[in-house]
């Protein structure tokens, strides 16, 4: 018999999507509008041109049941400026964070932390230092949690980029 009820009750999962799009026709707003109009989640979204082409790559991280993920992929494909949508299963994901910390904090601790997360101190001014780190998204999330102790003034994350292994 038809298994579509099972299909309905599936667990929510996290999905990394690469969307290759033509660089025009207000394509980014088409994609964002699609997500908001149909009530899909966006956990992270990054855009950058694909080198030496007229295309851009949009990396989207979304969370949903398999029915929803299936619809997201199909609805994205349906948009006229979308060339290709890839669902990634085995990927390297990287997220970058910039954190500004006041100079009165324990800077050697901060330096050690940054290094532990593949990062370094990038800039020092009279009031603050800026560290950056690039790592897997869950490790970056962890770094942000730990760094709270040092009273960060500002935290900026880049969003996730991904590539199939």
């Amino acid at each position: 018999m038809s298994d579509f009820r099972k299909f309905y009750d599936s667990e929510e999962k996290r999905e990394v999507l690469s969307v290759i799009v033509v660089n025009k026709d207000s394509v980014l707003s088409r994609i964002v509008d699609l997500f908001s109009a149909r009530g899909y989640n966006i956990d992270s979204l990054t855009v950058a041109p694909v080198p030496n082409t007229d295309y851009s790559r949009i990396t989207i991280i979304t969370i949903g049941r398999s029915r929803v993920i299936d619809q997201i992929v199909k609805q994205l494909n349906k948009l006229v400026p979308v060339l290709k949508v890839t669902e990634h299963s085995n990927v390297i994901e990287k997220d970058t964070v910039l954190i500004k910390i006041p100079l009165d904090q324990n800077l050697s601790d901060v330096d050690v932390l940054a290094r532990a997360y593949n990062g370094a101190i990038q800039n020092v001014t009279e009031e603050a230092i800026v560290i950056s780190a690039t790592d897997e998204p869950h490790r970056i999330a962890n770094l942000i949690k730990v760094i709270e102790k040092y009273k960060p003034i500002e935290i900026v994350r880049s969003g996730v980029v991904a590539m199939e292994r």
Partner: protein
Amino acid sequence: MINVSISIDYKYNFIFEENTVKITGARMVIEALNEEKTEVVFGYPGGAIMNVYDEIYKQDFFQHILTKHEQAAVHAADAYARSTGKVGVAIVTSGPGFTNAVTGIATAYTDSIPMVIISGQVPTAVIGTDAFQEIDAVGISRSCTKHNFLVNDVKDLPRVLKLAFYLARTGRPGPVHIDLPKDVSANIAEFDYSKNFELPTYKPTTKGNVRQIKNALEHIAKAKRPLLYVGGGAVLSNCYEDIREFVELTKIPVVETLMARGVMRSDSEYLFGMLGMHGEYAANMAMSETDMIICLGARFDDRVTGRLDVFAKKAHVVHVDIDPASIAKIVKPNYPIVGDLAIVMKQILEESQDMTFNDYSSWKDKLTTYQKEHPLRFEEDSDRLKPQWVIKRTGELLGDKALISTDVGQHQMWTAQFYPFNYPRQFMTSGGLGTMGVGLPYAMGVKRANPDKISVNFTGDGSIMMNIQEIITCTQYNLPHINIILNNNYLGMVRQWQTRFYEDRLAETVLETQADFKMLSESMGGVGYKVHTKEEFDKALEDAIASNKTAMIEVIVDRREEVLPMVPNGHALNEMLLLGDK
């Protein structure tokens, strides 16, 4: 800058340079519409679109019909497309011209109707400055068009025009919107419509996967209670003859959606009627008991499935659709087939020729029994006319000679139930969006596309008021049609729900104060009749046709009549309220 050595034809704004011809953006619109063999455009002028209207004035390729409201222009173009299968065209100005058109665009989008809508826009230099009559038109239309374009450079316009028509009619059809700034329509560039434009990101699948089709057919052949569930895709892809042939060959029973009325002949022994919230008892029972749904161009709409977790529990599902996103959106099929239904039906017929299908006669007999137990019916009343009788009677008198439009509400469902539709594109109705006010402009667009047919609009006393100004357009352009107003002094469908589910608290649904429809019609060059009895109705219909004018036949009907059967919200498809149920 214009080269001095060129000559200019001031009438057509053609500019000849050595071997090339340069024309204005506005002229490109005219030339493209001509290339696309557009015979009529519905529209309304305004500041930002004046360059295009100036060219419309100069041309004689197509007729322009000036409606009284932009919404009606888009609805009329939509009806033209529904009844012919060609791309409907509407032209409006920027700002309010465009926002008035949005309801029309959304109506066409929800029912996948091929259209091109061209709107004026403020000049590119002032876009973003909140200029007079400026609105972010492409931002608004993005969610209710198949695709849209804001043209920034006249050099891009030939490509955009050609792609707009191509996108509108291919794949899953739909409206395409072009927003044309005033300076772009004034600027000049080369125009070559024969050039093909590549669109590497848009490649709809048209041919079905042969292995999947064979696989599905093998299972259909072995099924005990298969059911063809036919949707609007069968109308849009013009393949009703192949579906009828497949039914003759396999003897599989059929149910139709609202959008598919007419795909089967109304008197076919295999047709068990329309299914869904107001579907026939036999059709809904068929869907509940089938073991093999063969969905042809339908999308398992919530008005069709009823409560989803108990929908068609025993069934395997074959789903044919041109839009991959329609497949597995609501119901996950066992046999998904992406393709143009017209092509897939040819493939199905070819594969079916030397196959042996089960004998489904006992299944069909069972459905016939259901049909006999609970046929579509209404109880006659000696005192007052029943709305269903009016529709049935019109069917008896006009039958295949009439093309039927409706507005939205009770009369729409009664029309779907009781009019004998015998061919596709006979029934124009806003199925997906449910837009009140489409009826009169639909009847107008239908008449323009089919001058030899009788165009009838079944409407209600609520809906008719929403675009009633268009009577005068029909008078001006000689587009006679007949509006049959089933007047119950209520917003009947909402009233029915209030009675059933809100303890009869009739919040804002009582239409006590009404226009005199006869005078209203006459004041705009039409004719009008007020009808209380069967004899009066027959006479009015006859006179209306003979008058060759736009007619309003106001029929005073039983106020409290309900649309039945009815599947209440949140109930399974087989849990219907029938005539006599409380």
